[in-house]
């Protein structure tokens, strides 16, 4: 049983090795597709086991917790691994058409698989230092993907990205050191018990804020988000799509994990701080998006604003709020990656992502226009798409606590989201192309069309399914939130004893 937890890490690493060795042949990319499919199957098996048995834990090398490295999956960890595999598979299929052979020969697929390994590892680990290691794996592979090809623009974005993320890493590592000095353990389940015996609560709150800053940079919280819009529009679209879908969400996941499992001592201070950070993040993100004139830059700023909603759900710290955060995480990964894919196809057939220089997509590529509207409306929170339920739950949680201002702001941000989506629609889809080009999907070779459109259609279908049949997903999120708020099951399974 413990091997189910290892597969989501083991499969990508073996795939990366094979992809790299066969990078100069056609086999490389198909190994990547096969490996990611296997990852999806393995993650589904893990998920069904978690649904069946509750929290799963495995002790690497048979060293008992809290001394060895623990892998653990609760409902949140499980669903994040599944969604990682889905996004990964969509990206690999998309990149079959988008990524030129030159980048494949430099090891594109191996880097992508390493990134998936890092993300899965971060979602599954039950050890704080191990989490740091996975963050490093992610940082290095994502930096590689960001600068692969080495244009001046990419290096510029890449340096900003890596510099700010290194600051977060230093913060994270110092926090780990202090926490270890204070409690003598880094196993998350053990920490849950150990922090209860800490006398110096002031220091504990300080450490909590250090972690907040460290994960805040990763999650692109206000005011630490500058690296994101500076870098996400430079690499190939497949890369920005998977970054947009997964990377910031790992930060949010880490926030949720730490601030429910470990730092739940001084909720009045830490979670109120998170609340206001979330509100400001929402507003800054959406205002930044309104000021942009590039397809991918608008979408990048929207990531920031949506991160605000997720952190808001965590900050409210009620069952409903956390349920909203979990629902939002899953919904957002699907929708955001999809919007970037659409932007990529628009760039391919209309020639640019600069809104002033494209157009005519509605007249000549109505299918693409339709497939843009689904994730765009879902992002803005239109019923009956998945975004509606996600926003509804979060706002409802705020209203239940009688936080009128917070609820009002999040509704207003939703309205502004529609504004910038209309802006994209009004510039890229509605008017004729300024250069008189007719951007048709049918001009693309058949193979390219399939590879580009298949992920978009599949992810759009997923959004619709979640939106139209929300009941099982909502129930799932509710159970996941319950596990987060009462981690007894998690702690017992990891440590193997009753706390």
């Amino acid at each position, binding site marked *: 049983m413990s*091997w189910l937890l290892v597969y989501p890490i083991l499969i990508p*690493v*073996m795939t990366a*090795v094979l992809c790299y*060795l066969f990078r100069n042949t056609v086999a490389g990319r198909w190994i990547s597709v096969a490996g990611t499919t296997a990852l999806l199957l393995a993650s589904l098996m893990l998920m069904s086991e978690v649904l069946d048995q509750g929290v799963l834990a495995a002790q690497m*090398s048979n060293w008992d917790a809290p001394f060895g490295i623990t892998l653990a999956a609760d409902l949140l960890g499980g669903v994040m691994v599944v969604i990682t595999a889905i996004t990964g598979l969509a990206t690999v299929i998309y990149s079959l058409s988008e990524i030129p052979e030159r980048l494949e020969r430099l*090891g594109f697929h191996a880097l992508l698989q390493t990134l998936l390994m890092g993300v899965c590892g971060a979602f599954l680990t039950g050890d704080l230092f191990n989490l740091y290691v996975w963050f490093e794996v992610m940082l290095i592979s994502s930096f590689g993907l960001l600068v692969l090809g080495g244009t001046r623009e990419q290096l510029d974005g890449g340096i900003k990205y890596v510099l700010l993320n290194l600051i977060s890493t230093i913060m994270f590592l110092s926090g780990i050191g202090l926490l270890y000095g204070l409690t003598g353990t880094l196993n998350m389940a053990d920490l849950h018990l150990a922090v209860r015996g800490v006398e110096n609560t002031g220091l504990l709150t300080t450490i909590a804020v250090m972690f907040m800053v460290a994960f805040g940079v990763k999650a692109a919280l206000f005011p630490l988000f500058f690296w994101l819009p500076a870098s996400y529009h430079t690499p190939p679209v497949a890369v920005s799509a998977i970054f947009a879908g997964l990377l910031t969400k790992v930060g949010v996941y880490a926030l949720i994990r730490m601030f429910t499992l470990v730092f739940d001592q001084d909720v009045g201070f830490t979670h109120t701080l998170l609340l206001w950070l979330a509100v400001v993040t929402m507003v800054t993100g959406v205002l930044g998006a309104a000021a942009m004139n590039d397809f991918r830059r608008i979408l990048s700023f929207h990531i920031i604003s949506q991160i605000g909603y997720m952190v808001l759900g965590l900050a409210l710290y009620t069952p409903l709020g956390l349920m909203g955060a979990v629902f939002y995480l899953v919904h957002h990964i699907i929708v955001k990656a999809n919007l970037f894919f659409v932007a990529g196809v628009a760039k391919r057939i209309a020639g640019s992502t600069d809104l002033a220089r494209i157009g005519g997509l509605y007249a000549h590529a109505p299918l693409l226009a339709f497939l843009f509207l689904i994730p765009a409306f879902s992002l803005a929170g239109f019923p009956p798409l998945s975004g509606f339920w996600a926003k509804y739950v979060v706002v409802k949680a705020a209203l239940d606590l009688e936080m009128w201002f917070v609820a009002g702001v999040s509704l207003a941000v939703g309205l502004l989201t529609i504004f910038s989506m209309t802006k994209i629609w009004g510039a890229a889809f509605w008017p004729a192309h300024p250069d008189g080009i007719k951007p048709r999907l049918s001009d693309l070779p058949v193979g390219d069309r399939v590879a580009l459109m298949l992920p978009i259609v599949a992810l759009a279908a997923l959004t619709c399914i979640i939106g139209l049949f929300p009941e099982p997903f909502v129930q799932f999120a509710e159970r996941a939130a319950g596990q987060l708020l009462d981690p007894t099951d998690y702690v017992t399974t990891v440590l193997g004893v009753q706390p």
Partner: protein
Amino acid sequence: MQSLILTTTTRLMAALLLMFSVYALLRGHNLPGGGFIGGLIGATAFILYTIATSVSEARAALRMDPSNLAMLGVGVAALGGMGAGFAGEPFFTGQWLFLFQDGDSYVPLSTVLVFDIGVYMAVFGGILTLVFALEQEI
């Protein structure tokens, strides 16, 4: 600059360093040494050879792309961890086989060693990838 002293010494030193790196790798489980250190020492042999001759000659002497070697090492290390699966134990649990047992003396073989060999290859290849790339720029 070609130095006769350096090229002559390198022929001897490179062989010694490679041999010593394997020694460090094998004694690593219970004594100082292991895959990482061994890989570093082994890479030093080729770095010395690069300085004495040239990058292209060192590449030719290595016979395979160092980055391939590094990735292969990662794969071997992961395989070493998978060995535990055949015994039904968690990932990375060491599996031991004691050969030629005769009183107190035996030859211990383990999946830990396989892991160490993987690390050796990864470090060896990784360092040489960097050094060759840096040397070539100049």
